[in-house]
């Protein structure tokens, strides 16, 4: 179990300059963050570099993490994702996704047959609510969050007009918020 209070404790120790705490944090969360970065960047070397950058940032910013305002894991995932998105948007031509990946996103097959989706599916409101969305809304949100695609890229990947993609994203997010909060 990724124990939030344990992660928060390690972040506090990092803020105090304790390198052993950063190493412990690395052991606990680096594999999950690397999975997120690999899905976004699609290159092992780039993903490992981005993960290094993310850990430097976690080390530098640990003192600014405020547990009253968010969960430790969400904070670290967001640091890693932001780094990856910066890299993705830095004018690098992006690989097109494969048909199977587009279908996975549409049907919420998160990591293929090897997925760990069962926990998320049963435990999280997100899953229930994503499943309640229209297929295209769901696909757009998953392609953006997990694969880091821009709306233009999503439109090109699924061969739909950009305007439709924008409206699926907007309406998908609205429905998602209503559903999760209900």
């Amino acid at each position, binding site marked *: *179990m*990724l124990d939030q209070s344990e992660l928060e404790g390690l972040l506090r120790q990092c803020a*105090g*300059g*304790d*390198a*052993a705490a*950063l*190493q412990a944090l*690395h052991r*606990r969360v*680096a*594999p*999950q963050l*690397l*999975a*997120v970065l690999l*899905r976004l960047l699609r290159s092992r070397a780039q993903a*490992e570099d981005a*993960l*290094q950058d993310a*850990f*430097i940032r976690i*080390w530098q910013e640990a003192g600014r993490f405020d547990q009253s*305002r*968010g*969960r430790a*894991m*969400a*904070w670290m*995932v*967001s640091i890693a*994702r932001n780094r990856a998105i910066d890299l*993705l*948007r830095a004018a690098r031509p992006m690989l097109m996704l494969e048909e199977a990946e587009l279908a996975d996103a549409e049907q919420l097959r*998160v*990591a293929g*047959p*090897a*997925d*760990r989706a*069962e*926990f*998320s599916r049963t*435990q*999280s*409101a*997100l*899953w229930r609510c994503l499943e309640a969305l229209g297929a295209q809304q769901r696909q757009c*949100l*998953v392609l*953006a*969050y*997990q694969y880091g695609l*821009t*709306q233009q890229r999503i439109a090109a990947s699924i061969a739909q007009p950009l305007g439709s993609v924008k409206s699926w*994203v907007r309406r998908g*997010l*609205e429905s998602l*918020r209503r559903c999760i909060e209900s």
Partner: protein
Amino acid sequence: MNYERPELLDQLAATHVLGLLRGRARVRFEHLCATRPRLLAARLSWEDRFLPLALALMPVAPSADHWPAIRRRINLAGALPSDSAARRRGFSARRWWSVAAAASVIATALLVGKLTVWSAPEWRPVAVLAQTSATPLWRVERTADSRRLVIHTVGPVQIAAARSYELWALPAGGAAPVSLGLLPVHGDIERALSAEQRSWLQKATQVAVSVEPSGGSPTGLPTGPVIIVTSIATASS
């Protein structure tokens, strides 16, 4: 944009969390969060809402030199007091561990002796391992206290040269998988679980099987393709 309208603010925050704000809009959003608590709160809520999509991905072990590289970059080459304290702790922990390991070998030997002489343990199902809609390959059971695991090979198991199948406990909530050892290619095997394996197995909701180099994963985390993920039977079943 009018940042005071709650639904616009929320939509903007969600768009940012998805990574869909571009260029200057993205930078402006980051700056605005510093001065607008409601925007920051909306952003944190969305980061939290989408987190399960990140945690659902199978963890991947970084290469062995990943941590040393970070260490070099933060320029902590053994000088900080907290670091040397950590190393001292590490040293004594290793010594303690070797004593504990020796003790546990003796304890396990005694326990196995007892079990074989006096009573056959009662086995409870952990999982039947099968690739999707295919013949089951293994049946895994444990004792009520999860101290021992038995694995029965029930199907024809094919394995490539120089490869092994490894069993993993997948803790709920996205923590890294914990190895439960190699799977047999034929016959049954029974093994004692370490205190750590036992505690992870008790907390796990699923088990997985990965294909590894002969002898098992060199990194302590799955390195090859994962061929099976299945839920663990609950205590009542």
